[in-house]
């Protein structure tokens, strides 16, 4: 009896193990996911509350009132506009500059490798520190950049403290810090492109501009999309550079999402409003990510189809 039951056991065990294995393997990812989802849904819950830490008696469920308040507040639309303009401007500039530098360094030589490493240095600087460094360089009393632009005929340049030049100033810092990120991703992409189409074009004497727009760019597009997506997500959530340079000012000129949410939470202790703003930012980044990922998948399908 005992011996007749024995042969079935390992079979049962192995069936169970087979079924459980995928769950066991995905358990770490599941735990990570829970670790992310709990704070996320907590933030969603808070965004539906009237919740200021210093007005505990007024705490209560108000459904979507925080969101409705935002949509009827011109300052929110200013925040949305500034955040999108900042993200668009920095990403486009960094993409163009990053691509240009990557193309200059495309050929594998010792000098190019050395320069590409050297150009990565700003990326290794903490953005807040980079902002403080630039704040000193743009100081109208002793900053080197203020001195240089005064020689060029702009003696009263006020950089981040002037509403007319504040966006330009923080964009400059962002471009300085993050262009190397674009450059290194695109350089990796350029160097991994198959040489055959370029050799064929060279043999046929195809003009360089044609090669760039009809061969290089389309083949590089997955890399461009990936780098742009990463930078866009990061840029629309920018905090360090803007807060360290201007605290969101002058006026409300640079009051982007993260700076406003930070002030709402840490200064005003308005948890509900801050959480609602963060959820709106999440929705925007989610939508942008979807657009980019769909484009990326389309390109991949196209590439596979061709292959």
């Amino acid at each position, binding site marked *: 009896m005992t011996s007749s039951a024995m042969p079935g056991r390992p079979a049962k065990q192995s069936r169970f193990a087979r079924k459980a294995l995928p769950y066991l393997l995905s358990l770490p990812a599941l735990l990570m996911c829970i670790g992310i989802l709990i704070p996320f849904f907590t933030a969603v819950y808070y965004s539906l509350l009237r919740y200021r*830490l210093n007005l505990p008696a007024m705490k209560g469920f108000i459904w979507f009132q925080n969101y409705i308040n935002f949509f009827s507040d011109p300052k929110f639309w200013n925040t949305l506009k500034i955040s999108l303009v900042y993200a668009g401007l920095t990403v486009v500039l960094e993409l163009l500059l990053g691509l240009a530098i990557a193309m200059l360094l495309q050929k594998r030589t010792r000098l190019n490798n050395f320069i590409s490493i050297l150009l990565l240095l700003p990326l290794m600087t903490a953005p807040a520190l980079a902002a403080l460094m630039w*704040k000193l360089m743009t100081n109208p009393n002793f900053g080197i950049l203020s001195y240089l632009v005064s020689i060029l005929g702009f003696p009263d340049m006020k950089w981040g*403290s002037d509403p007319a030049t504040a966006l330009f100033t923080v964009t400059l810092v962002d471009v300085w810090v993050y262009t190397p990120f674009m450059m290194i991703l695109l350089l990796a992409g350029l160097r991994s492109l198959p040489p055959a189409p370029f050799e064929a074009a060279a043999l046929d004497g195809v003009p360089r501009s044609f090669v760039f727009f009809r061969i290089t760019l389309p083949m590089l597009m997955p890399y461009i999309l990936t780098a742009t997506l990463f930078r866009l997500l990061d840029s629309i959530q920018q905090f360090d550079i803007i807060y360290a340079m201007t*605290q969101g000012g*002058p006026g409300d000129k640079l009051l982007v999402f993260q700076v406003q949410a930070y*002030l709402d939470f840490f200064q*005003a*202790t308005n948890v509900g409003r801050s959480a609602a703003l963060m959820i709106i930012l999440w929705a925007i980044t989610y939508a942008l990510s979807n657009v980019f990922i769909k484009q990326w998948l389309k390109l991949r399908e196209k590439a596979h189809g061709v292959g």
Partner: protein
Amino acid sequence: MYDKEKGLFEAFVAGKMSRRELLQATGKLGLSASAAGLLVTQAQTRAMAADFDWMKHKGTKLKLLLNKHPYADAMIANIETFKTMTGIDVSWDIFPEDVYFDKVTAALSSGSGEYDAFMTGAYMTWTYGPAGWIDDINEYIKDPAKTNPGYNWEDLLPGLRASTSWNGVPGGELGSADAKQWCIPWGYELNNISYNKKMFDKVGVQPPKNIDEMVATSAKLTKDLGGPYGIGVRGSRSWASIHPGFLSGYANFGEKDFNVTDGKLKAAMNSAGSKDFHKKWVQMIQESGPKDWANYTWYQVGTDLGAGASAMIFDADILGYFMNGGDNKEAGNLGYAPFAANPAASAPTPNVWIWSLAMASAGKQKDATWYFLQWATSVEHALFGARKMDFVNPVRASVWKDEEFRGRIDKSYAGYLNQHDVSAPGAKIYFTAQPLFFDLTTLWSENLQKMVAKEIPVDEGLDKMAAEMDAKLAEAGLG
């Protein structure tokens, strides 16, 4: 011999002898300065311990959250006195001011009992108190079983005691009979003029006496000095740009931030008087302020004065104090003057910033924490800090009367005592205590930036700002 020494130190601690007299006397007895310092500490310990069981909480461990500041430095320099006297061990985390209040908010809002006491400003208690993060210290001050009979609460300057107590009612008067004492004043700063005497002499001007003179003098200094600008005031997009010189001058005209009617608040910044003051302030910055004024915090305002980049500041008096020493280029060249913006006012009305100590509600050893708080805010420690360290401005009337302290300040900081003594009676918090303080005061600074940048005219800007504030107050159920 020993009794003679002991008598000398006890006379010093009791205030019957100055430090100079003590050192002369101990020198005759062959004691070195360091040995004298040790004996002073022992005498302080004996004096404080005379009628009170300081050892009651021996063996307890306390943890503090501190801002990197000369007040904290003075406390750390003297902490052995407390440890010896009480047997309580004290440790601390110390953070620079840029991140300090974020750390405090995070620590308190988490409900963590990690810190027993911490440094705070009075304005912050308008958030921490109603949120239930800090204890009403009246419970301890008024309990004779827990408080050293020599503590002398009444010795703390009355304006500061009132400014650190609030009943929690939006718009409620500070220091009212039903107010809770949310923190204990530790050191404070009032706002007056600190100026570069050499630059003033060169241009041939005197410290201004009112806002019109300040506008004119600043413009003349900017024009005639050909380099340094006339006046340094804060301008960053922060509540901290409103509270020093700006609010001190504003309050001198009797202008208010809010009117309180039947418990409801209404913004008062768009009154005719307020608009007039704003126009003068904006004009002064446009004509004679720093080029990148919108980035100016207390740090830039102070360092420019110390480096000779500005001729005058209307900011914290202790900023002028600190810039007159150390490695600053203009050390020794700075003077101080009281300032009443309103020509019709009888005296200055400086708004104050009060570094204070508060007790965390989540702390587990509150009686021992109170022992620390009463020692750290005691006459003895205040005298130690004022005489030996940069623990200025003291918050105790008795310290301001201390000859050794006054002598030291008068010798190195001419005019400082006068500006303080003239202004101290009118020194208090002039903001209306209310829970939206940080949002609304930051909004004020945002609008001031727009006015200085000529993005909005003053009249229209203030009307719009008041309407926006009223809407926010209504949304929070306060307006």
